């Protein structure tokens, strides 16, 4: 579904160009829920930017076979349009994909119920809290009924109760046949959503660990392994 071959990407560091990815290969199969973990600057967000099309300044091949990709950026404020209401912001995603607006409005009602929205979607993003804005970007991603969803720290501004809600909704929407790639510092947060954990490290970035749920006897064992690896390596840094 997503295949990245020979990815080369540099970034500016102290007036020097440094490699973040050098001949990097990565692939995600249809229906996989992949968690990307790693320290700050390990390229998790850069990889999502490249897959989503937000970043086109790289060398290498990126092949994606999906009808619709949704991306929940780590900075909701910068990616929402403050001049449009939340409802308009969400429905714009459908307009960009040429999808039916009336179906979109119906879907929006359902999503509002699922996310238990307790504020008016007629409000503008600047009048919402950080967590509420994050929910709006999640709803904007789900409104296009994507095959692939890319999530970059989607729970950073949410309280524990809301995180559980969002996880439940994501599991419901991406239960079968759809693909998730989620970036997080905390494996603990997302372990119930994923069936594969990829741990980034080194410079240029390489894959230090790649663990799959199918390699374990039970889901609990897989989740334990994700918790242990990510906590030992990164959560204590955060």
């Amino acid at each position, binding site marked *: 579904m997503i295949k990245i071959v020979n990815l080369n990407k540099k970034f500016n560091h102290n007036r020097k160009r440094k490699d973040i990815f050098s001949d990097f290969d990565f692939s995600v199969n249809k229906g996989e829920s992949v968690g990307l973990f790693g320290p700050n600057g390990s390229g998790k967000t850069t990889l999502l930017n490249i897959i989503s099309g937000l970043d086109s300044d790289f060398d290498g091949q990126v092949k994606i076979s999906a009808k619709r990709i949704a991306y929940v950026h780590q900075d909701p404020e910068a990616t929402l349009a*403050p*001049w449009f209401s939340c409802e308009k912001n969400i429905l714009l995603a459908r307009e*960009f994909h040429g999808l039916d607006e009336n179906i979109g409005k119906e879907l929006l009602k359902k999503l509002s119920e699922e996310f238990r929205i307790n504020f008016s979607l007629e409000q503008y993003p600047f009048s919402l809290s950080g967590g509420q804005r994050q929910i709006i970007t999640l709803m904007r991603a789900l409104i296009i009924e994507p095959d692939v969803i890319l999530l970059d720290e989607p729970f950073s501004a949410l309280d524990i109760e809301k995180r559980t809600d969002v996880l439940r909704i994501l599991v419901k929407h991406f239960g079968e046949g759809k693909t998730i790639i989620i970036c997080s510092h905390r494996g603990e947060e997302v372990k119930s959503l994923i069936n594969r954990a990829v741990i980034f490290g080194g410079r240029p970035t390489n894959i230090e660990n790649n663990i799959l749920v199918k390699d374990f006897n039970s889901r609990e064992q897989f989740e334990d392994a994700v918790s242990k690896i990510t906590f030992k390596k990164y959560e204590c840094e955060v």
Partner: protein
Amino acid sequence: MNAKYKPIIGIIGLIVIWQLAAWLKLFNLIYFASPIEVFKEAIIMVQDGHIFSDIFFTLYRLLLSVIIATIFGLPIGLLLGCFSQTYHYFGEVLDFLRSIPPIVIYPLLLIVLGPGDISRIGVAIFGAIVVLILIISKGLFQQSPLRKKFFKAMGANQLQILKHVVWYEALPHIIIALRTAISLSLIIVVVTEMLVGAKYGLGVRVQNVQITANIPDLFATIIIIGFIGVLLNKILISIDKKFVFWRAN
């Protein structure tokens, strides 16, 4: 005290100081008029009616020049602001053009277009168009490209990005540019009216004081010019508050 009354008290205070200065004869009254004299002259000006023709012609020249400058300056500013490569080519040229006092091209326009309104409006257009292009393009150029790129990644085409992002990001800069362009055009229009060929206009009225030595008339005209500037600025500030509501938040 309610904040909205503070400017009124400031204005009244200034008028009182002005009147006191006149009573105390702190200035030579041949070159100076008191507020009471200016007020009396203003009543005569209104009864006489010529002031309305002067206001009309100055406003007509001002608004026509700003409208024409906007018709050309707005799309050019948007274009330069959207395409950073184009801005790199023309940014310095615009800075250079802005540094030229617009009034210095008036003699050239007088030779080419004659001493009529076209040359007066032409100079004001030149001043306004440079300001509009520069402020709009620089404002857009300095915007973070993230929102545009993100909308593009979401599937938006160029027209949708222009309609849903660029236009709104440009709007605050357009209003600032218009405020600056109007102030500059008002100066240019009044100065060119003072120089040559005009029959009506507030600049003509100011210039005529050299012949009539009617100092209260001069003071009243200067105040009217100031009022026009303030009024147009206030209208644009109201538009800004209504249509660029997200900026304050």
